[in-house]
């Protein structure tokens, strides 16, 4: 919410221009991919009407133009731009969430949803929380069990399961 604030002391924060240019470049590339793929499937008319690339072609053009504009502006004002994206300490906090989150998502294909969920909750409570081992274990183990009961038993929606669930016979 306070990204617009003026730059504080130098070195303590990531400037906004880098991420700004990076995201704009990414969107520009996506726009170009859309244009190229639309040209592949055809943007002109066939006997039965417009072909598949007809509409996406316009979309790709507008996406490239608008993000190209943002990229250009970020590059042109590269030197005088002093707005900050985030302080490094804040980015560390984000990483403290983003890294375990990524590991969690990466573990889901092998272990199913329940076990990584319990590990994520347990890790977080131990690492960042103040509760004891008992509370941590209770929350980490009970939450997936509650969700297991709600989804698999009550709503009959099966969730992804791994070796532990198979061993338990589900």
């Amino acid at each position, binding site marked *: 919410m306070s*990204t617009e604030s003026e730059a504080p002391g130098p070195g303590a924060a990531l400037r906004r221009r880098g991420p700004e240019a990076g995201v704009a470049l990414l969107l520009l590339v996506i726009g170009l991919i859309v244009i190229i*793929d639309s040209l592949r499937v055809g943007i002109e*008319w066939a006997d039965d009407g417009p072909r598949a690339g007809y*509409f996406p072609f316009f979309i790709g053009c507008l996406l490239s133009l608008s993000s190209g504009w943002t990229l250009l502006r970020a590059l042109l004002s590269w030197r005088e731009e002093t707005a900050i994206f985030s302080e490094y300490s804040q980015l560390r906090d984000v990483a403290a969430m983003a890294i375990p989150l990524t590991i969690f998502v990466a573990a889901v294909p092998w272990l199913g949803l329940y076990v990584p969920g319990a590990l994520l909750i347990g890790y977080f409570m131990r690492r960042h929380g103040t509760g004891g081992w008992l509370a941590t274990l209770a929350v980490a183990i009970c939450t997936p069990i509650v*969700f297991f009961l709600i989804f698999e038993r009550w709503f009959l929606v099966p969730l992804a399961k791994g070796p532990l669930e198979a061993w338990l016979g589900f």
Partner: protein
Amino acid sequence: MDEINSLMHGFSVALTLPNVGFMLVGLLLGVLIGVLPGLGGANGVAILLPLTFSMNPTSAIIMLSCIYWGALFGGAITSILFNIPGEPWSVATTFDGFPLAQQGRAAEALTAAFTSSFVGALFAVLAITFLAPLLAKFALEFGPPEFFAVQMLTFCSFIGMSKEPPMKTLAAMMFGFALAAVGMDTVTGQLRMTFGFTEMLKGFDFLIAVIGLFGIGEILTTMEEGLAFKGKSAKINFRVVLNTWKELLQYWRTFIRSVLIGCWMGITPGGATPASFMSYGMARRAAKDKESFGRGNIEGVVAPETAAHAAGTSALLPMLTLGIPGSPTAAVLLGGLLIWGLQPGPLLFVEQKDFVWGLIASMYLGNIVGLIVVLTTVPWWAAILRIPFPVIAPVIIFICAIGAYTVHSSIFDVVMMLVFGVFGYLFKKLRYPLAPLVLALVLGDMAESSFRQSMLLSQGGLGIFVSNWLVGSLMALSIFLLLLPMWGALKAMFRRREARAYLS
């Protein structure tokens, strides 16, 4: 009075025992979602949507729309007691709500907020009751060009009314359209942008996008802002409620103004968030004692809450009648309609009378019940926020992952949720608006097919979009809105030049 009869019939649908039960469950879940960071109206509904696939559509929409009302109510609790807006549209409520709580007047502020929400929603539902059938009848005559013109107006008004930079609004919207185009083209059956990956065949599901952008993105932003839940506690008793109600009567002008702003912003897809800010600003401008705003003025709670609820509720009007949602949450509900096998749009009022009027009746009931529920249960919700964030955050991520998985029982979707989450974080930090992205993703296929059908009708000529007065004026209005930011930029440029001339 056709509408009254239909509405009475609707009440008979909504007032059956299971539906009242779903209503209560929806409201309680909704307030919970509104209170918790990282879960909001849009992604809360998105996560629960797969659970309703097997339900009767009327009960499902009653429950899901009640989650939406509950989330609207819940946002006010965190903003007033904790100075943390649980929802973007309750940011403006913190300006005066939290100072009031600090002065020990939390109960008054909460009562005012809930009552204003109720009033805003009530008038918006009244508007839906009487305007929706008219609009639907009118829209029955619409052909593809008219639908495309309305969709065009929707998207242009984002660019014209958004607080975010117009080029970024456009980029976010086009990104949404591009994602919507991935997969099989419904007309020619050709594959677009799949690059040989089988996972891409189905395209990107907007439910996954909503869960990632709003849920995971929100958790990451919340981490960054640091979490110190230092809240005030509040207990509401009956006397405070009565006294506050008496006091609120003198703000009838604010109520009327905020309802009008809210309904307008909800029907045109400005959404609840800008409506609440606009209404707050107008109230301050109109007030005699401008200085008291921001330091704990009840009127500063009334104005944004009324407008946010009016906008949030009236966002369902274009969704039901034209199939065009006025807010991200309405977009998710629209997606639900499609999944339950109902085609949103004017025909809904002809073919699915039970569904439509049951929903409208449930809006009246849901808001009355919601008001009573939140007034009586505030202390409990405040207690939930005292659960430490290291417990809440991973549980919410777990819930989001389950929600993403259940949409298609696909693990690839969980990965996509993470990707969208990173996008959500970056977009939020760089001021790309998320609402147009989601709406474009939902409406992409519809907009494309109405555009292509129009082109077929006219054999490729764009003249079809000015061929009659209705299409022509919708298009003219769209272009006006599209150019609106340019007018502002021009004015700023001239002012700068004048200032420079003056200085030299």
